[in-house]
């Protein structure tokens, strides 16, 4: 038994991504069609050239028909995927494995979410009939418990920690301001961030990801076929996934300063990709910054900083777009919002642009490195699913 991965066996050869926004004038079908058409065009194929589809949506629809309907796919295998906030990443993982297995030549992953038709702010989980004893806490409240625990464990004072978290939010808004696909395209000062109304614990509005509608998609083929579709394929180096047991919620040993599921997924991904020094081997990383403390802790879970030191690296600018390892150069969930089914694929889309040198010049990262990481999580501290991928432009 082992997690072998599929390094260099599958390549992404086309991608598309809508703008993420409060698309009052667009339905789920419109978002699906826009992202899919862009992706078909990007790979130079039609819907009939794609042998199988995986469609990620958390709660905008049920079954593969939610995708097959708007695209009018006939007789194609279309599977709906749901795995909390990693739904979009999971659609790609399934499509990539299907191609790697030899079952299909061309597979497509589409992720889409129409969040803004609910009439409520924030994301709201689909209720499953239950005994009434489950937590009804918001994600913001669950993640808000991370910052004080981290500060206490590593001796970071409350004010200093506030500065660190504000710096993360500031950085992601800076990046998003330059990105035409982002929901929020304004720089936000750290003063404004710190003065924003509290949502949960010490987290303010600007510590939280936005809420938006959106869709993104990718087409994958066998690596040896990639150049038939594009001159610049992205080779999949690693796809890893870890579902937590939920024990963190009830295990007194869990201290809310890290996400074991993310650390496990990262470890597996680095083994698959052969990475030993992520900080210096990766050109960039897209991580799941649902709340600012999440991004802080992820810098350690993903091995970008030693335990207890990420806060210093954040302040030093290590993860800025011009820093040693740009993190969320597209603006992250912070600037994009979080249409659950689409977010994972939106992260891949940023690696697609950056590694191929296709980001607009003012936000193109300057690097000779050829590898990028995406990280996507779902759930809460103590009860989480986590996805990590590594992609690259070179074989080997």
């Amino acid at each position, binding site marked *: 038994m082992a997690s072998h991965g599929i390094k260099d066996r599958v390549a992404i050869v086309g991608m598309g991504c809508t703008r993420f926004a409060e698309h009052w004038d667009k339905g789920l079908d419109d978002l699906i069609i826009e992202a899919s058409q862009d992706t078909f065009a990007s790979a130079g194929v039609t819907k009939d050239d794609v042998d199988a589809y995986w469609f990620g949506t958390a709660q905008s629809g049920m079954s593969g028909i939610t995708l097959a309907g708007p695209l009018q796919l006939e007789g194609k295998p279309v599977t709906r995927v749901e795995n909390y906030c990693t739904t979009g990443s999971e659609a790609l993982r399934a499509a990539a494995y299907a191609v790697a297995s030899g079952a299909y030549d061309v597979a497509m992953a589409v992720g889409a979410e129409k969040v803004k038709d609910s009439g409520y702010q924030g994301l709201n989980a689909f209720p499953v009939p239950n005994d*009434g004893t489950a937590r009804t806490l*918001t994600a*913001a*409240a669950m993640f808000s418990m991370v910052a004080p625990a981290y500060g206490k464990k590593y001796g970071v004072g409350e004010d200093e920690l506030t500065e660190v978290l504000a710096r993360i939010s500031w950085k992601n808004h800076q990046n998003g301001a330059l990105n035409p696909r982002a929901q929020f395209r304004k720089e936000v000062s750290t003063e404004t961030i710190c003065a924003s109304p509290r949502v949960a614990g010490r987290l303010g509005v600007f510590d939280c990801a936005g809420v938006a509608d959106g869709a993104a998609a990718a087409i994958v083929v066998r690596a040896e076929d990639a150049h038939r579709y594009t001159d610049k394929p992205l080779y999949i180096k690693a796809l890893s996934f870890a579902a937590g047991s939920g024990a963190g*919620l009830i295990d007194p040993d869990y201290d809310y300063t890290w996400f074991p599921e993310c650390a496990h997924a990262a470890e597996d991904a680095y083994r698959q990709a052969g990475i030993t020094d992520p900080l210096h081997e990766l050109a960039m990383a897209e991580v799941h910054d649902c709340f600012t403390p999440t991004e802080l802790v992820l810098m350690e879970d993903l091995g970008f900083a030693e335990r207890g030191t990420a806060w210093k690296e954040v302040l030093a600018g290590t993860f800025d777009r011009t820093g040693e390892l740009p993190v969320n150069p597209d603006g992250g969930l912070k600037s994009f919002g979080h249409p659950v089914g689409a977010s994972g694929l939106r992260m891949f889309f940023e690696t697609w642009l950056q590694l191929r040198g296709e980001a607009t010049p003012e936000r193109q990262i300057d690097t000779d490195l050829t590898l990028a990481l995406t990280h996507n999580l779902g759930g809460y501290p103590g009860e989480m699913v986590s996805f990590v991928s590594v992609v690259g432009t070179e074989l080997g």
Partner: protein
Amino acid sequence: MRGIVSIAGYVPYRRLQRSEVAKFFGTGGGKGTRAVASHDEDTTTMGVEAARLALHPVPGAAPSAIWLATATPAYLDKTNATAIHAALGQPARVAAFDFGGALRSGTGALQTGLASTGSGTTLVVLADLRDGLPTSADESAGGDGAAAVLIGDDAPGTPVIAEYLGGASVTDEFLDRWRTVGDRRSRVWEERFGETRYVPLGTQAWESALKSAGIAAEQVDHVVVTGMHGRAAKALGRKLGVADGVLSDDLSATVGQTGAAHPGLVLAAMLERARPGEVVAVVALADGADVLVFRTTDAIASWSPARSVADQIADGADLSYGKFLSWRGMVATEPPRRPEPQRVSSSAAWRNEGWKFGFVGTRDRASGAVHLPPARVSMKGGAVDDMEPAGRADTEATIATYTIDRLAYSPSPPVVFAVLDFDGGGRFPVELTDVDPDTVDIGDRVTMTFRKLFTADGIHDYFWKAKPSHAAGAAGTTPAGG
């Protein structure tokens, strides 16, 4: 010998200063305070808290029946005492019945239990929520609370602490106070009429009860006259013929009149102060008059209440009048912009009764790891189906970390939420209640309390929350059980 084996009152944590009413409306209110049930309490949950306190000093007690008497039941048709039965973890063979509707049902249940010598041990739970329209006399004079009286025959391990000497009931059909089903408030006839009825009825019942108990009025050491008709109760008190200082505090200045619960609540307060060999009586005026007379036994010296009524009265915190009105549904405030919770699944709740109502998890026999909620597969070592029950309802816990959720749906935002580590093992993230958000801190000690989380589709969602131990009962000081 039949009588009271244990007794407890339950006074909710919040207080309304009656002067706040006049500050807001320019009229109404009065002096002193009244006790206010939290937004997550009803007569069933308050009854559970009283019952837990009453059972705490007598771990060997095994009631054969649980009776709930209230004028404000959480459900009609469905028995409310079954939720109390479940929260106390009682076996199926223990009966659970409601005495419903009338204010008089409280004393009726007590008298029935006390008169049934040889019928086993009965846990009689009284609870009520009293209010009226804003500025009304009922709003100010009323109070919320509960009492639980464990009635039984004297036995080793469960001795009677107050022998029932006798009592009397006098019944009369007249309209002094009434409420039709579904009506938000009670209505009352002209006060003078009720007084002219209640005082002679009470006198008659008092004389008859003393005769039945075989004692004279001068021999009574503690007595309280209760009833929603305050003037009549005061007038009767002056006519009882008891010695000076015997007429005890009826708690109207601090708690308010707790309706069907009040005879039990004042009885608990009197017995908590009584010495062995004293005569204690309670007179209740409701659609007639009922009197119960007791003599404390030597066993009362070694009985100590889990948390006295006096301590609970002292440990209260003020509630604004605005919050009071919104908690009582008199003023509708803007709900959080989140979906309202869905109704509880009846079958899922039934399957998980021990967890939902009893807060009983499991402990893995192999690793010792405590699982809250219960699990079949251990989180440590993976043993399958090798678990034993681990109850944590009566176990104190320490706050490992906490947060305040200003977005989550709650009938009274914000939600204060903490991750708890229980003494003797077990961690559980749970909502806090009876707490000021600004005073919570890591390391604080908390105690579990049975509450109603919300109501959807007419279904009350009962589960446990935690409250600061300073506002808790000694029920939270026992060593880890199970």
